[in-house]
């Protein structure tokens, strides 16, 4: 990845630590662009891993009475496939886009808390490794990605401990990320960029951050209760002692349903950026799209029990949740119509990002409609735990979220690397994936309605399920094949990619106003924003009939190789803290023999927090590449300082971050 870094092509400012290149600079980086790239690379790796798990599942189900996997292995694979795709792929991919783009799109030079941002990434990476390493340490978790109690509390082996502890660790990363993104978006927008002049992508990331803030603590509680039941003898979910497994379902889905919107809203944001650019029209009904996103988030907290229609909630609760579930289709529908309205009458250019965005709309609409059928209680009772549900959520999460993410990858890659991804390979990727995806999941609607059950390793012959299962398996392998042109284009992009200008697609938002790759400091001068799609309005005016007329040509931005703008200094404390946390988790899981590891991990963790809190970026001997003196930090008892020392401050907001980390272990 080093070849793709924005910095690699620039003349670097002097640095006594040589920290602008090499592995160490990536380990200690607090640059939101590098962190975004690392998030993206790691998540793509887990995407391949989760995909391989899915292929094993489909191999097992290709023919009746499959013998590829034992039931135990099948349980492990479907659990890890779901857990991986949700927590290690789509959520971090959204974080990747958010990290890379939010500061540039709002005209800022970094996120609010750069070190906390680095910590989020390292905790995510190590947490993902922790979860996946269970394969070598007794087997993958095997209780489903939802980990229903008491199944998850009563299995003997430590697999579900890996699951509960792994998700708790990943929750710290997401929570810190959410705090960071909300703060960044609320406080660091460029002058003139009011909330309703922000790009829709930034809006959707804000909504997602709020969803994370208010839903993560709920699953944290559920996971603690499961973990305590397993390890400390509590009786939260022991029905024999009066514990109530339904409580777990409520807590899980009170997180789990907002989580669905956490997964899909970033892609809705991406699509809302891509469609206007490739239709050469502004987004139709900007305010409606934004408010619909917020409405989805609010309603998203009131629909969780539709996952539990067969748990015996009683007719009143079921009717209420049935209604709210129907309501939530309204804002979703508003968005779909606004996207269609955006393309209506536009000069559509069917480049790869646009293809994926249109694919997103089509596939997501199918998934959304099958979702509405779940709101009808009697129908849902029939569909629960069948492949119909599997088909539904793959249409929204793969056909929706992943297609949106691929649209974003093709759209913003020229900004990231300075080179377009191959259009030819991109089109192969899109059409193969669209075909493979529909071959895999469309038949599952029928399979489910015919009675094929989820999470079951085998199905009997002669009940009419063979053909469509075989089709579905072929489709899954086609999806795998479709990834090859994408991976090839990615790996050869630095040699074969066609060079892209800064404004690669005649774009509308601020990221296209800076060079590709963006300079380390993003903006030489902080832009002043006057309108939605401000960058577009710098280029285009309107004639009498309202058609866009070019009024200015923006020259290629300079590379600013001589500029020195004070930026947050690198720090190794974030990775230290994350490593300590995960080492301690391993130590805990392995009982008496793990205690030394637990102690080492705890020491590293607290060393990281302590060092972080102490880190003084203004000290000349400090571990930093701070070149300009004159800060008044040391006589700072006198009161709030305006922005002279600005760069350092956000970075050194050490203690609140440290405090939250300490909290994170509890919370």
């Amino acid at each position, binding site marked *: 990845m080093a070849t793709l870094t924005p910095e690699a092509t620039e003349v670097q400012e002097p640095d006594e630590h040589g920290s602008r290149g090499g592995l160490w600079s990536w380990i200690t980086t607090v640059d939101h662009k590098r962190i975004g790239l690392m998030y993206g690379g790691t998540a793509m790796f887990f995407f391949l891993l989760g995909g391989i798990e899915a292929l094993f599942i489909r191999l097992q189900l290709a023919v009746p009475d499959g013998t590829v996997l034992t039931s135990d292995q099948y349980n492990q694979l479907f659990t890890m496939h779901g857990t991986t795709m949700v927590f290690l792929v789509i959520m971090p991919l959204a974080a990747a886009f958010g990290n890379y783009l939010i500061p540039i799109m709002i005209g*800022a*030079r*970094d996120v609010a*808390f750069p070190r906390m941002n680095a910590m989020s990434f390292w905790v995510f990476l190590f947490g993902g490794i922790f979860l996946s390493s269970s394969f070598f340490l007794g087997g993958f978790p095997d209780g489903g990605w939802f980990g229903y109690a008491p199944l998850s509390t009563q299995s003997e082996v430590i697999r579900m401990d890996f699951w509960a502890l792994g998700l708790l660790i990943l929750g710290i990363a997401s929570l810190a990320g*959410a*705090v*960071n993104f*909300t*703060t960044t978006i*609320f*406080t*660091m*927008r*460029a002058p003139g960029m009011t909330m309703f002049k922000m790009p829709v992508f930034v809006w959707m990331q804000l909504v997602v951050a709020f969803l994370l*803030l*208010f839903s*993560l*603590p*709920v699953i944290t*509680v559920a996971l*603690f209760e499961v973990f*305590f*039941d397993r390890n400390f*003898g*509590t*009786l*939260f979910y022991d029905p024999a*002692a*009066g*514990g*109530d497994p339904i409580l777990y379902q409520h807590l899980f889905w*009170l997180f789990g349903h907002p989580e669905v919107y956490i997964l899909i809203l970033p892609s809705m944001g991406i699509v809302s950026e891509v469609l206007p650019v490739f239709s050469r029209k502004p987004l139709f009904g900007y305010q409606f799209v934004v408010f619909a996103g917020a409405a989805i988030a609010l309603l998203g907290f009131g629909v969780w029990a539709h996952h539990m229609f067969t748990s015996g909630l009683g007719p009143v609760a079921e009717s209420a949740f049935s209604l709210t579930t129907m309501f939530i289709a309204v804002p979703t529908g508003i968005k779909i119509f606004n996207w269609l309205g955006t393309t209506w009458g536009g000069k559509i250019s069917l480049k790869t990002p646009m293809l994926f965005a249109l694919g997103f709309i089509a596939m997501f609409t199918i998934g959304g409609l099958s979702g509405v059928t779940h709101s009808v209680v009697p129908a849902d009772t029939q569909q629960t735990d069948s492949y119909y549900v599997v088909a539904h959520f793959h249409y929204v999460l793969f056909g929706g979220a992943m297609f949106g993410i691929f649209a974003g990858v093709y759209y913003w890659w020229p900004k990231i690397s300075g080179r377009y991804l191959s259009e030819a390979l991109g089109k192969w990727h899109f059409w193969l994936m669209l075909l493979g995806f529909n071959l895999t999941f469309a038949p599952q609607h029928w399979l489910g309605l015919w009675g094929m059950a989820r999470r079951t390793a085998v199905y009997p012959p002669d009940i009419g399920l063979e053909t469509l299962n075989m089709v579905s398996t072929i489709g899954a392998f086609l999806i795998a094949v479709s990834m090859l042109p994408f991976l090839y284009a990615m790996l050869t992009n630095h040699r074969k990619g066609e060079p892209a200008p800064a404004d690669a697609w005649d774009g509308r938002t601020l990221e296209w106003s800076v060079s590709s790759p963006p300079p380390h400091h993003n903006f030489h*001068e902080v832009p002043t924003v006057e309108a939605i799609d401000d960058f577009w309005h710098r280029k285009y005016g309107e004639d009498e009939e309202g058609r866009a007329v070019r009024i200015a040509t923006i020259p290629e931005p300079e590379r*600013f190789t*001589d*500029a*020195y*703008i004070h930026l947050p200094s690198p720090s190794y404390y974030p990775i230290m803290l994350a490593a300590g946390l995960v080492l301690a988790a391993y130590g805990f899981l392995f009982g008496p023999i793990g205690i030394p590891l637990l102690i080492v991990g705890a020491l590293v963790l607290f060393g990281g927090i302590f060092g972080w*809190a102490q880190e003084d970026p203004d000290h000349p001997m400090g571990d930093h590449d701070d070149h300009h003196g004159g800060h008044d*930090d040391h006589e*700072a*008892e006198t*009161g*709030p300082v*305006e*922005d*002279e*020392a*600005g*760069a350092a*401050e*956000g970075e*050194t*907001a050490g*203690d*609140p971050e440290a*405090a*939250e980390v300490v909290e994170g272990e*509890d*919370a």
Partner: protein
Amino acid sequence: MATETAVHGPTGTDGADIRKTAMWGFLGSECLFFGSFIATFLLYSDETNGGPGTEVFDIPFTSVSSFVLLMSSLTMVLAHNAYERDDNRQLRIWLVATALLGTVFLGGQVFEFTTFYAEGLRMDVSPFGSAFFVLTGFHGAHVAVGVLMLTSMIILSRRGQLYRHRGMNVELVGLYWHFVDIVWIVIFTVVYLLQV
């Protein structure tokens, strides 16, 4: 050194303190954390599984320790007031007082837990016990973290390193501390007073 424009500071472009924004977001999240544990407790308040129930609660004792914790909010306010006046001596006095009151509350909780265990109310006896100890235990952990933060404030202030615009400051610790107190008011009401 072509340009020396600020990237961002403790204040964002519109003058808001970014650390306060972050702290409010975090505390908002914490509401749901404690809310879920309180919901668990309410569900299990009668699930004693044959073991002891709410009759083991000693309301006068817990009232006193609750009062101690509430008073620590007062001393925290006085500390913040001294901080605003740049009166470092007063600041440290009130920070020490706050940390001490917090520690007294924690001591009371340890005493209470020990007593309950002796009376047979344990984490592994009933869902009621599980819910009680895990909820109040997590609250105690939050108080302990708060005491640690107060202690760091005191040490930093003594060393003259308590910078207003950088890192954790007294106002942020105060926000956290008041939040933890408010949560206790809810817990004391819902878990103790409404149950006996």
